[in-house]
């Protein structure tokens, strides 16, 4: 029966090729636009480490000016911490893993090698690699023993290792970082989490850093943060020591808490520290000590911007226009073919059979529309990618990184296409089955 209905559908397409093409095109355009917006939205709103949702937390405390909120339009505490607070909390033994970090500029060269190159560098602690599940190509991260006092060890990204050593296993070799010698202990494999949840300050879609050094080197070499530093208060900050003691937020802290009990203990630890400092005259704003998991963090930091929410809405409005259009065209087409349907009904086809026959016709249209729509969406995404990439002059980072299909996106798209078109086809197929056959048999 299916094969017969499919043949009928093909026959019907052949009768009005123009109309059929129009319907497929309308479906395809609607699907293409909505899939494009959804893909970008999905790329923005994804949580790249969802399996650690109940373990991984970023730590923030409201240390800001009692007279002025950190941001007048937001109720959130500053997204980073002062050195003194972060340093104190970092000494806690409650977290299973803990990371203190910031990002800085550096200049690196391999001994006896080519000209020095600027590298974006992360000063971080030993747990960074395990906590964020960073993959290694060669070697490993450093042990926590190398954190303090800081050992001259360095981890390179794969790209940087390719540039400096042509991709060879460079573990054990040395590089000069800002004219100091460091020994390579590990080389990362490809790693590009999107969004860059562990540090959103340098842009949510920026590439990870090229080099990783023990956190205390940053302090020792008095390296400033190159992303976001915010200060309040009127105390002179003349040197790095002043800076470390000032109400300046510049450090990011993450903790991995294995259980909700550990989470409660960590919260109590923070609150206890807050109360102590509050009594001593700091922390004069209402208490706001937070442990925020990744998905909430991405929401708090507004990784998905308003424009993209708007575009998703627009995409669906456009899909609605296309589907309404398709309903209209299908209806016209089926009613045009009513005399034939009348004959089939008179010859004994049931309403249900008529309905099934037309639904198969609709199904074929929807599959064609979805396939064409996905192809158009891929083209559209490539165009948007090109637009972003050319503005970046070929450098990575930015929205260009999320203008690709991922597997979940394709499943979404196919599902959306089929469901939407079948929904559009239901009414016309039902309507044509309800036509009284006698009326159409009367006229030619």
């Amino acid at each position, binding site marked *: 029966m299916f094969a017969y209905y499919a043949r009928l559908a093909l026959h019907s397409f052949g009768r009005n090729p123009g109309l059929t093409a129009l319907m497929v095109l309308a479906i395809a355009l609607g699907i293409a636009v909505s899939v494009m917006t959804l893909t970008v939205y999905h790329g923005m709103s994804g949580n790249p480490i969802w399996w650690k949702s109940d373990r991984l937390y970023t730590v923030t405390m409201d240390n800001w000016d009692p007279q002025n909120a950190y941001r007048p339009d937001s109720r959130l505490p500053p997204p980073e911490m002062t050195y003194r607070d972060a340093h104190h909390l970092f000494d806690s033994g409650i977290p299973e893993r803990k990371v203190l970090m910031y990002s800085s500029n550096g200049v690196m060269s391999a001994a006896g090698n080519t000209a020095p190159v600027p590298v974006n560098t992360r000063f971080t602690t030993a747990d960074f690699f395990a906590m964020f599940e960073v993959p290694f190509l060669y070697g490993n991260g450093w042990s926590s023993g190398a954190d303090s006092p800081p050992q001259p060890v360095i981890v390179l990204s794969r790209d940087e290792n390719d540039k400096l050593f042509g991709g060879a296993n460079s573990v054990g070799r040395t590089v000069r970082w800002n004219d100091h010698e460091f020994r390579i202990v590990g080389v990362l494999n490809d790693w590009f989490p999107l969004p860059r949840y562990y540090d959103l300050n340098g842009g949510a879609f920026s590439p990870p850093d090229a080099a990783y050094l023990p956190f205390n080197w940053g302090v020792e070499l008095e390296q400033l943060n190159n992303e976001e530093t915010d200060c309040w208060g009127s105390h002179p900050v003349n040197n790095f020591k002043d800076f470390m003691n000032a109400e300046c937020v510049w450090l990011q802290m993450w903790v991995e808490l294995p259980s909700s009990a550990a989470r409660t203990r960590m919260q109590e630890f923070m609150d206890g520290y807050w109360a102590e400092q509050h009594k001593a005259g700091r922390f004069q704003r209402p208490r706001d000590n937070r442990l925020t998991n990744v998905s909430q963090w991405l929401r708090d930091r507004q990784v998905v911007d308003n424009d993209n929410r708007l575009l998703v809405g627009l995409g669906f409005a456009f899909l609605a226009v296309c589907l309404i*259009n398709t309903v209209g065209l299908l209806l016209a087409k089926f009613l045009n073919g009513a005399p034939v349907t009348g004959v089939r009904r008179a010859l004994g086809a049931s309403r249900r059979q008529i309905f099934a026959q037309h639904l198969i016709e609709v199904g074929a249209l929807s599959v064609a529309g979805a396939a064409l729509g996905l192809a158009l969406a891929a083209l559209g995404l490539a165009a948007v990618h090109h637009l972003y990439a050319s503005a970046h002059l070929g450098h990575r980072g930015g929205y260009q990184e999320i203008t690709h299909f991922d597997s979940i996106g394709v499943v979404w798209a196919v599902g959306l296409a089929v469901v939407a078109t079948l929904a559009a086809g239901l009414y016309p197929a039902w309507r044509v089955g309800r036509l009284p056959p006698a009326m159409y048999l009367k006229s030619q």
Partner: protein
Amino acid sequence: MSLNVRPIMSALLRNRTGAVLVAMQVALALAVMVNALYIVMQRIDKIGRPTGIDVDNVLIVSSSGFTEHYQQVPSIQEDLAYLRGVDGVVAASAMRGTPLSDGGDAEPLVTRPEAQRTDNYNDWEVDEESLHALGIQLVAGRNFRHDEIQPPLTKQDASRFVPQIIVSRALAEHLFPHENPLGKRVFDTLNQSATIIGVVDPIMGSFPSNLHPDWLYLIPRVPADFLGLNYAVRTRPGMRDTVARLIEAHLAQSNPDRVIDSVRSLSYYKDLSYLGDHTMAIYLVTVTALVIGVTCLGIFALATFNVSTRTKQIGTRRAVGARRRDIVRYFLVENALVTGGGVVVGCALALAVGYWLSVQYALPRLNLYYLVGGVLALWGIGQLAAWQPARRAAAVPPSVATRTV
């Protein structure tokens, strides 16, 4: 001349579905089109705001010293001397801060010591050549003199302020409303004061997306080696890219104690800062065009369908005396009624969407001229789309009426 709306209306009501579907499309299309184009116009306005800078002819060279031997002041002197001697270079200056790049420094300033510090204002460290090198207009007071450019901050005195500053007219107006800002004093976080000696306008600072991108002040100081150093290099028109290649090759070799991070045109930074707005505008225009196109096809298809199912009726009307133009008019009026219904619903929908956007995303409320324009445009498009099927209907010969049954 009567338009015969009544019989057309009653015919429409007897066969509603197709007409309702087209009206729904028109309504949605109107809501999408009006709001999308309104947003597009805002983005175009935003991108087109005056920067006060000769964006097309300025290069930004970013340099970092990294060895123990590196000395910022002699290095800058040597680089500037070289840059000013390059053929095609109009002016070169050492500064901290990149115009229009969406990144930079901001510090509070107040007009009385001990006043509440609520706002941070974007600041650049500049030298006496910076205004010329960026093409910025001084509208009052004077530029910095060479001897007023302070030595760089060091890691021992990083809180030092300067005796004079230049401010943007917008910041001057904000700090000293309706007053002449020249000679006025402002205070930093440590209550160190500076006197305003000049006013520039128009100008856009480092943050084009901020609410007040034109609140900017200029500090006469050599950039510190532990912060960032840029050279702003202005070239003669058409020479920019040639100069860029030349100076990048030279500077990369000239001093082994530093690296050149990048040599980029200022338009690169500007384009990148506005990339989101630019893409959004392209996207909205494309989708709007598609919405209109699909709606057009919908109207066309419905009209064609109506004509083909009513061939006999048309023939009968022609046989009893209707002229061709009556038939054309019938279909155009029918289309006008359907589109009109859609447009009425669409107006309400467009206003509702506009209101929702203004509440949800803090966009300005929809301008009603856009709505009027959208209504007229869609109505016109509807008539155009129905024109060809109506002409075909008019071509039906009266004899058709006699042929069947």
